[in-house]
């Protein structure tokens, strides 16, 4: 039997550190799932809220960092998902927890006609254009009296359910959504489609000339990001029970997502995670300071953008080679004997 000489070049994907991280992650999820049995209900409510922020930020990150489309209007889909969930629950008698993924789906679907308009623009003007579209959503819903017009309405469909049950179910739903969102983005980016996205982001014209269907891919990313935003929105209002146009379609959602992603690092999966954690911590300890807190957030985002172009996590990745979610393939050369 002939012996093949060892390959001179090997392609390595997962580092040892990331394998450990995966195991730790699974353990964390299992522990977290048991929280309703031993934790306080306020913890569960906080988790749901942070889960929404995180999912929204991760999807914004997918759109901007990987799709190359910076949007200030993702709140359109966030609110749309919330309103659809509420309408299905209140008017169609659906179980709101079932309505959550349906709301997300609706958001993903409406992204198609929206993209037809939004894709006329690019760069900075695309960003503002999406904001205009979000405003149209907001003003439209504010004029629909069936859902309470400008002052909004409540989610009546959950009225009959006992508080503890509702809170635990919402919590598990949030946990499931977080895991699903991470898995979705991670698997998507590791796939061939993910590589295609990176190629498009780096050089659209070159990618097109390689046969990558750029327009379709951009629509796909936009749709997935809208779905994710709608998921976060539907989840948020299941937890919040009350919806209003100003809350649902507020540009602050995108502002917070931008903050989380910029602090954590654009274009990296761990980025929004790190950003969400930092954001949660800042929120917890400083939000009492109201305007000064927000002012500080704004300044921090400016400073990080100017001086830490890769975000804080990206800085760590470059400096110390940390990576939890490897989507890059590392080229190894065999050591000479």
């Amino acid at each position, binding site marked *: 039997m002939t012996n093949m000489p060892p390959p001179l070049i090997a392609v390595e994907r997962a580092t040892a550190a990331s394998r450990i991280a995966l195991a730790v992650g699974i353990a964390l999820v299992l522990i977290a799932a048991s929280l309703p049995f031993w934790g306080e209900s306020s913890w569960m409510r906080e988790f749901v809220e942070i889960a929404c922020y995180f999912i929204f930020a991760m999807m914004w990150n997918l759109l901007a960092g990987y799709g190359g489309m910076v949007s200030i209007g993702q709140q359109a889909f966030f609110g749309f998902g919330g309103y659809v969930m509420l309408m299905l629950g209140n008017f169609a008698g659906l179980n709101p927890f079932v309505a959550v993924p349906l709301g997300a789906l609706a958001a993903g679907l409406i992204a198609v006609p929206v993209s037809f308009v939004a894709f006329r623009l690019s760069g900075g003007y695309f960003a503002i254009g999406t904001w205009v579209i979000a405003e149209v959503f907001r*003003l439209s819903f504010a004029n629909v009296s069936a859902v309470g017009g400008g002052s909004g309405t409540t989610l009546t469909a959950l009225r009959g359910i006992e508080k503890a049950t509702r809170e635990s179910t919402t919590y598990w739903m949030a946990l499931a959504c977080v895991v699903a969102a991470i898995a979705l983005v991670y698997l998507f980016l590791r796939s061939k489609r993910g590589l295609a996205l990176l190629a498009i982001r780096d050089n659209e014209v070159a990618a097109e000339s390689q046969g990558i269907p750029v327009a379709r891919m951009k629509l796909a990313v936009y749709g997935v990001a809208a779905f994710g935003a709608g998921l976060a929105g539907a989840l948020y209002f299941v937890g919040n029970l009350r919806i209003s146009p100003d809350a649902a379609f507020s540009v602050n959602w995108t502002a917070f997502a931008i903050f989380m992603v910029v602090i954590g690092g654009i274009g990296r999966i761990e980025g929004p995670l790190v950003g969400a954690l930092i954001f949660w911590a800042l929120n917890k300890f400083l939000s009492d300071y109201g305007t000064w807190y927000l002012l500080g957030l704004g300044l921090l985002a400016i400073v990080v953008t*100017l001086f830490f172009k890769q975000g804080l996590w990206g800085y760590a990745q470059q400096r110390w080679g940390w990576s939890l979610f490897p989507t890059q393939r590392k080229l190894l050369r065999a050591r000479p004997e």
Partner: protein
Amino acid sequence: MLETVIQGVLLGGLYTLFALGQSLMFGVMRLTNTAQGDFIILGAFAVIAGVSVAGDGMVWGVALAVLPAAFAFGYALQRYVLNGTLGKDPLPSLVVTFGLSIVIQNLLLELFSADPRAIETGGLNTQGVALGDAISLGVLPLIVLAVALVATAALQWLFARTALGRSFRAVSDDREIAELMGLDAKKVYAFATAIAFVLIAIAGALQGMRTTVSPSDGPLLLLFAFEAVIIGGMGSFWGTLAGAMILGITQQIGFRLDPGWGIWFGHIVFLIVLVLRPQGLFPKTRG
């Protein structure tokens, strides 16, 4: 109907002033200033603060004094902050200007509280000029329209006939070759933003005289400015004026039909123009 259109034109004058600075900054360096509206509001509050120090009679003096301050501020902002965000990636400039928007809104909130304020003009904002029997045109809106026309013409002249305007066009065309000629792109950009901020200050002062302003008004003004630029077509200041007029008229028609739908109607017309003629109605052929 005629009155609605006239009111729309007058409103368009104001929107022109909101939009010119944005058009200038985007035209010269492809920079989208998402804090445009907030800087306009900041300008208004600067005049308000100045008046509270100098006295009610000094309104126009304070407004004029704010202009060179705005020039210097814009120059410094571009030179030391925004120049670092320029490049192929639109994200840094978007995030930084967005961050500035949040900083300004909250700073104003802290300094002035959320109460709406106005710049007292001794009744100028209520005076009217009669046009025939039925129509009365506000004096202040007419002033705004006149200022808008002058500003547009001045910018157009600056770009087409002066050495500075030539350098604006050159760096916007090809920064590398412009630098090869001896231009310092960083300084040219700073001048562009400085001029844009003078326009912003003018817009802010007039806005504060025309109506009340409060710290969170900025974003809506940004959207109006942006819509005016897109409807009119990029690369042309007269185009921006035309776009602002169309937006103003559209909004006035919308307000006439139903007060709740005025702004919405403007947004919708904007989106329609975007779908049917994405290059705008009067674009200058440029890259």
